């Protein structure tokens, strides 16, 4: 009879535990990271082996959690990718908005600037038209600086976000290693029974960590987990944490990079390609910096062409035009780890060959190498870095102050600061050079029918540009310049002198004289204004194939395409992530209907066991009463 008591009691205990497990499942139905638990029952082995052995009840063998390592890993990877795209998308969509609104303003401002030149060309002496032009130029400058300012703002947001991510990653790592320790101890104390709730908690933290940074995990001893980032740098090894830290970029102290604290000098930013942190770093190198460079390229092209035209014309005071725009040129930044003081100077040799890339110049083993800073690909160059033989590549000319120490590096940024520093250099309307620098005159006494073109300036820097020059014909086929050597004349061919060029066409007669001289006083001349207005469609960038206008359009299309591409990738990854979550949930999630059925199942089993106990009890009482004769 005692067997029935023992069996029933073991069943009562087991079903009570089962009810507890089910209640616990229901209680944690909405707990993130909770894995559905189930009771494992085994039948107790009978102690005495009779002719027909009868079971001895039920034992709780353990409580297991529903968990698939494969699904969990897939979810972590998918969360890392989604985290990366989410934070990247956050920035590309902001750039998209900036470009959609303020760069739209930039495009209008540039349009108005060129139109203002056209208006000046219609009435070159009008102060009102000139003032409108200066204002239009100011608007261009404001549009550049506001667009650039907003982009720079994104970069400082990225810096704070990187620092915040690193703090959070470190805090998660510390918690994970602490949980690892408890799991190791708990597993040992539990006689091999895993402490499910600790593991659930730990795995949830690992899952949260995977949203922040792409990780790989391996199983450690006694239920611990080891976590690695980048190319296998350990973050958590059992109960030991290796913290991440932020360090300043070697070329730019205001830009934060990520490194392992124990190996601080070596940034691992380039290895972190997923998770929120990966997205932030990608946003900086793939979206914000290229946009700033592209904007700078447009600013550089606009100012260079405008200034060159301005320099080859005369202002209202009869002076050669001064620069209309001032813009910061290319920069060469020495690495903070350079071991000697050699500096590099960069200048623009050919604005048409400028790219939107940054470059790294490295001196190693007695030779220079030039690489694209974004992808590390080698860039061909000529020259040896001296003033006589500058390093020439990508429209740039690089001169070093000496021979750098081996291993020294310089970051070459061709257009990064151009948009930020773009400003209007002129203050007075009379300084706008609307007139051509030279004017030509055919003497009224000329007997021949030869005519002279109005002349163009080829080299504005020629000091003799504005000196008066007489071209005198000594016969129909020869002429002298300022009484110099006789030169052969061909109708319509170029005659160049003092940095200018004219054409004389027709048939001159000996004694015919043409004069080329300064156009000072020619305030009604609009040739330079016309040329300035025509720069709107003049091919400048990409080796003279893309106009300033075209570059603005290309900027808008490029930014829009990138944002669109990231949006699409994010949508796709959201679906992938939802699928991965579904896979995990279908294994580990708590289904309340299931639990309701389980509740009923265990309740009924408990009730039956209790009934068995009751029957055993009444049977036993009946038996005792029969013996005592109280049964009647």
């Amino acid at each position: 009879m005692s067997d029935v008591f023992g069996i029933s009691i073991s069943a009562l205990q087991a079903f009570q535990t089962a009810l507890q497990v089910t209640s616990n499942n229901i209680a944690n139905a909405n707990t993130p990271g909770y894995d559905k638990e189930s009771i494992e029952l085994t039948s107790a082995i009978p102690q005495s082996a009779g002719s027909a052995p009868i079971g001895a009840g039920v034992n709780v063998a353990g409580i297991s959690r529903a968990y698939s390592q494969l699904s969990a890993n897939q979810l972590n990877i998918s969360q890392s990718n989604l985290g990366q795209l989410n934070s990247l998308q956050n920035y590309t969509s902001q750039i998209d908005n900036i470009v959609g609104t303020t760069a739209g303003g930039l495009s209008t401002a540039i349009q108005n600037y060129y139109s203002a030149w056209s208006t000046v060309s219609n009435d070159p002496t009008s102060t009102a038209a000139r003032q409108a032009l200066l204002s239009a130029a100011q608007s261009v400058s404001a549009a550049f600086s506001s667009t650039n300012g907003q982009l720079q703002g994104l970069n400082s947001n990225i810096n704070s976000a990187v620092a915040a991510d690193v703090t959070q990653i470190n805090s998660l790592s510390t918690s994970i290693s602490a949980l690892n320790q408890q799991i190791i101890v708990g597993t040992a104390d539990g006689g091999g029974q895993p402490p499910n709730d600790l593991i659930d908690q730990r795995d949830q933290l690992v899952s949260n960590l995977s949203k922040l940074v792409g990780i790989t995990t391996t199983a450690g001893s006694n239920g611990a987990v080891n976590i690695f980032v980048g190319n296998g740098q350990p973050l958590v090894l059992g109960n030991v944490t290796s913290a991440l830290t932020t360090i300043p970029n070697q070329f730019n102290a205001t830009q934060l990079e990520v490194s392992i604290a124990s190996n601080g000098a070596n940034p691992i930013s380039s290895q972190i390609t997923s998770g929120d942190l990966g997205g932030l770093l990608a946003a900086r190198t793939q979206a914000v910096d290229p946009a700033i460079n592209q904007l700078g390229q447009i600013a550089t092209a606009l100012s260079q062409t405008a200034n060159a035209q301005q320099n080859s014309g005369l202002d209202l005071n009869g002076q050669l035009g001064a620069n209309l725009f001032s813009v910061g040129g290319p920069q060469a930044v020495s690495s903070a780890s350079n071991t000697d003081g050699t500096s590099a100077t960069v200048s623009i040799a050919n604005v048409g060959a400028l790219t939107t890339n940054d470059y790294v110049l490295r001196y190693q083993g007695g030779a220079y190498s030039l690489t694209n800073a974004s992808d590390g690909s080698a860039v061909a160059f000529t020259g040896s870095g001296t003033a006589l033989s500058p390093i020439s590549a990508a429209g740039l000319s690089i001169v070093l102050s000496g021979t750098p120490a081996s291993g020294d590096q310089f970051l070459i940024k061709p257009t990064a600061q151009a948009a930020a520093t773009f400003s209007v250099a002129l203050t007075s309307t009379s300084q706008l050079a609307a007139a051509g620098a030279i004017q030509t005159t055919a003497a009224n006494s000329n007997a021949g029918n030869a005519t002279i073109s109005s002349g163009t300036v080829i080299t504005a820097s020629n000091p003799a540009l504005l000196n008066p020059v007489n071209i005198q014909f000594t016969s129909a086929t020869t002429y002298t310049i300022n009484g110099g050597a006789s030169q052969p004349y061909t109708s319509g061919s170029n005659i160049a002198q003092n940095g200018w060029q004219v054409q004389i066409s027709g048939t001159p007669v000996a004694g015919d004289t043409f004069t080329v001289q300064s156009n000072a006083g020619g305030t009604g001349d609009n040739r330079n204004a016309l040329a300035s207005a025509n720069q709107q469609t003049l091919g400048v960038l990409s080796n003279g194939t893309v106009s300033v206008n075209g570059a603005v359009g290309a900027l808008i299309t490029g930014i829009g395409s990138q944002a669109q591409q990231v949006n699409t990738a994010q949508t796709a990854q959201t679906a992938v992530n939802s699928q991965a979550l579904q896979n995990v949930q279908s294994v580990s999630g708590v289904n309340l209907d299931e639990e309701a059925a389980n509740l009923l199942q265990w309740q009924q089993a408990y009730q039956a066991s209790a009934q068995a106990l009751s029957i055993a009890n009444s049977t036993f009482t009946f038996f005792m009463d029969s013996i005592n004769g109280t049964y009647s």
Partner: protein
Amino acid sequence: MRVTQGLNQTQFITALDSLESSLSQTQNQVSSGLAFTTPSQNPIAAGTVSNYDQVLAQSKQYTANGNSAQTGLQTEDTALTQVQNQLQSLRSLALEANSGTQTGEDLSAIAAQATQIQNTLLTVANTQDGNGQYIFSGFATQTQPFSLTATGAAYAGDQGQQHVQIAAGQTVAAGDNGDVVFNQIKTGNGVFTAAANAGNTGSGVIGATTVSGAAGYTGGTFSINFTAANTYNVENAASVVVGTGTYTPGQTITYGGAQIALSGQPAVGDSFDVAASGNQSLFTTVQNLVTALQAGANSASSKPALNNAIAGALNNIDQAISQTSTVQANVGGRLNTITTQQSQATSQQTQLQQSISSLQSLDYASAITSLDSQNTTLSAAMQAYTLTQGLTLFKYIQ
């Protein structure tokens, strides 16, 4: 597949987010009337619209430039018409003075009228446009181009010519400088000029001069000298006699492609000088005429000299009329070019506006349709959620 209530919840919320975001985007489109509000919604169209906008703005600027050039050219056209009118009056005055019946007082009166014409011409040559810029001073638009001198007028402008951009790659001259209009006027018949020597004493008067022969005028500078009343020789610039001939009054003397009609009877020793045409200022021509008229008024005996001077002046006035007509014809041509260009620009602008509109403007029919269908999807999703939320086994456990 095993589904849990938690997953259902998460998926519903995700779906709700995405549905509401598309709904809000469509709603934005409908309320703004724009097919895209950020470049990412249609990167190619956004870039293209930016480029079209630039082309459109440029085209409108070209139209404005054309209007400005039109105003300038019309001012010039009016001025040139005035010059022609003055020259025609001057021509009539010269013919009147040449008629032979004029007394000294008459000639004085005519000279005074010619001086008046000279002053009017000066005023016209110093015409300023609406902005106070001199239209005939080349680039030096702030410098008064002409001022009278004893022999004509001095020119303070230059030979610059303003051009205006009226289309991509097309400019049109917005004016002409004073040298071209007033100073670079050929003398004589435009090829050569013949003048009586100042010391002539006979009554020989030069008539019409023409160029003959296929080779044209080859004579260079030469003079016709009367060695007797009816014989002359031709001397070249080096005073070498290169030809001789006999003369009867009214005869045309031909040398080196130049045909010179001569009337009257030159005295022995009289000569007539022939040279290739050069440039002479209109003001010099008028001044010379005035001077000759005044000299004629003071001495009745110098009639042939007056006649010769008037004949020369008439030639020069005709050249000036022809020169200003040519310039005026050019101005008319430019005005036509601008008009043609502007009508092309107008149709280009319409075209561009249509293109921009087709890229940028919302197709309301399809936007409203998708708004409707997104709305339906969203409310269906909500309905489905509420329905499935009611389904739980616990409801039936009593």
